[in-house]
């Protein structure tokens, strides 16, 4: 374009540098959006005259948009009998498990790993390096054990380790 040709080299540099930045993802709940937008399109009353259907759709969409406004976690608004709205942060009517918030399985997530191991066998398992195995201390009892046992002693044979663990003395 003719206009772009009039940018100075310095301006082009800034333009390129800015252009390399990627806009951060928006905070929109994508699944909720898809569902409600889709519902808005599905529930359009098809049999209403064309002249009024657009108005009704807009009203429905706005209504859905208003009522689907995301609630802060743990807070639900309830309309009481007298029409007033109370909001409570205490009541959790039901709990859903914190899906997606657990620690990842070494090398991947359960479902994916399961299907890969079924298809490819043990080669699908992440191959631990010496560092990665030590990074995942397995359980509280083992953690306590290793707090007691100096790292160097783990190279010892059985009896050295046993003696250290039981008496605290090095063999």
């Amino acid at each position, binding site marked *: 374009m003719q206009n772009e040709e009039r940018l100075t080299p310095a301006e082009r540099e800034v333009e390129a540098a800015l252009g390399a930045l990627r806009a951060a993802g928006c905070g929109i*709940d*994508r*699944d*909720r959006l*898809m*569902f409600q937008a*889709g*519902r808005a*399109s*599905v529930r359009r009353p098809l049999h209403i005259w064309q002249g009024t259907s657009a108005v009704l759709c807009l009203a429905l969409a706005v209504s859905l948009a208003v*009522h689907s406004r995301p*609630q802060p976690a743990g807070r*639900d608004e309830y309309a009481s009998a007298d029409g007033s709205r109370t909001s409570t942060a205490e009541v959790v*009517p*039901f709990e*859903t*498990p*914190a*899906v*997606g*918030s*657990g*620690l*990842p*399985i*070494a*090398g991947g*997530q*359960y*479902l*994916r*790993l*399961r*299907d*890969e*191991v*079924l*298809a490819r*066998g*043990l080669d699908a*398992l*992440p*191959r*631990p*390096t*010496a560092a990665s*195995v*030590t990074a995942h201390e*397995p*359980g509280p*009892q*083992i953690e306590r*054990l*290793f707090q007691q046992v100096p790292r160097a002693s*783990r*190279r*010892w*044979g*059985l009896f050295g*380790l046993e003696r250290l663990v039981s008496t605290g003395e090095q063999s």
Partner: protein
Amino acid sequence: MNRNIGALFILHSVLVGAAAGQRAVLTTGPSPQEAVSTVRLAVRPADAPKPALKYLLLPDVCDQTPGNAAQLYYTAQQLYADAKKDELDEKIDSWCRMPLNDLPRAEVRRVLSEYTAALRYVRLASRSELCHWDIPVRTEAFNVVLPQLGAFRGLAKIVAVQARLNISEGNYADAMDDLQTGFAMARHIGEAPTLINALVGLAVGGLMLDGAQDLMQAPDAPNLYWALADLPRPFIDMRNALRWEKALVHLAVPQLRNLTRADLTPQQWNAVMKNVQEIVAMGAVSSAETGWQSRLEMAAVSIKLYPKAKRYLMELGQSKEQVERMPVQQVVLMYSLDRYTYWRDEMFKWLSLPYWQAHEPLKQQEMAFAKSQGGALADGFPFTMLLPSLRRAYFRATKCDRHVAALQCIEAVRMHAAAHDGRPPASLGDIHVVPVPNDPVTGKAFGYEVKGNVVTLDAPPPAGDSPRDGAKYVITIIR
């Protein structure tokens, strides 16, 4: 003439003796040109040991110790990690596969000495009476964190290599001890309530069966028929892991258990739907298919499902008013879950039957299921995306049992040969010294062919499946 015959006999004996002196297997493993996996063994006739259960492939009760093996396995993992050198991985892999004769014993011994502590602790663990991994599948469901299963693979390999080293040096008692360690570890891993654990347990068991195979071929090696017969069948019960798989969806989203009675607000239904979507997103497999895309696909399909879901519930007996009072998400979830339950049970039910009975109907059912998943309105979507490949999982477990049965067959042949001047039987039906197991994949006898002193045991793949799922054992009876 007698002298010539005598000379020929001596020459023959010398040659046979030279072959016997080689503590080596003839080539094992598939020839590249063969689609079916072919295992070649050279064995000598051998009678059952006395006493009959002198050799066992699992630790005897008297050798077990009280306590929970899991803690000791974690210690063994830690010790393994301390000793592990990544650059040796490939070498250790090759030591698991190469002909025993070619094993560089000095180097193997030196490397294994670095793992002395790890080997000691895995042995201790394998002798424990119990193994409770305490994997919290009930609360964590699809988010469960599993123990470092990759490290178990490494531990199993060094156990297998140690067994091979002992076999190659004629230390059969130590080799049996190693195999007991490995088989017990396989069972312990496989008992945990996840399908991945079962598969890892099977793989470890497979490594140990290869070790048993090596031992069977060693000079003066004991006959392992009764040791193999003593192994539990199924070696790893896949049904245990699959029962948990069946329950995972309900464990992950407990609200799904009472959809009809649930009295949730639309926002709460949204939260349930979101949980389901997140689980499904976790299952996105291909690099082209991201979690986001699978969620979007799910949402779009849910929108299309609503009219069908309404009709379905009304056909089941709900009134129009009842259904239309329900939030859209509830209607869609009820319909999808109902369809998922139908397909799930239609496939899972076959696991109650032996594989050879279940294979064909399960295959047909999987084809019908796959057909139902095509197009935009996948039946039972999104829950059906969470189902594992049941037939594949069941086959893996049965394949391990087939390996045990095949080796048991071979030992039966060795026993027969020992009682018949080193001659193999003309057919498996001619073996009367011990019962001969059937192939658990087909439910029938193994295919059997003998030409001179070479026996071929044939384990065909399940009907209609890849030749690679079959196995062939070519056994040379060394007299």
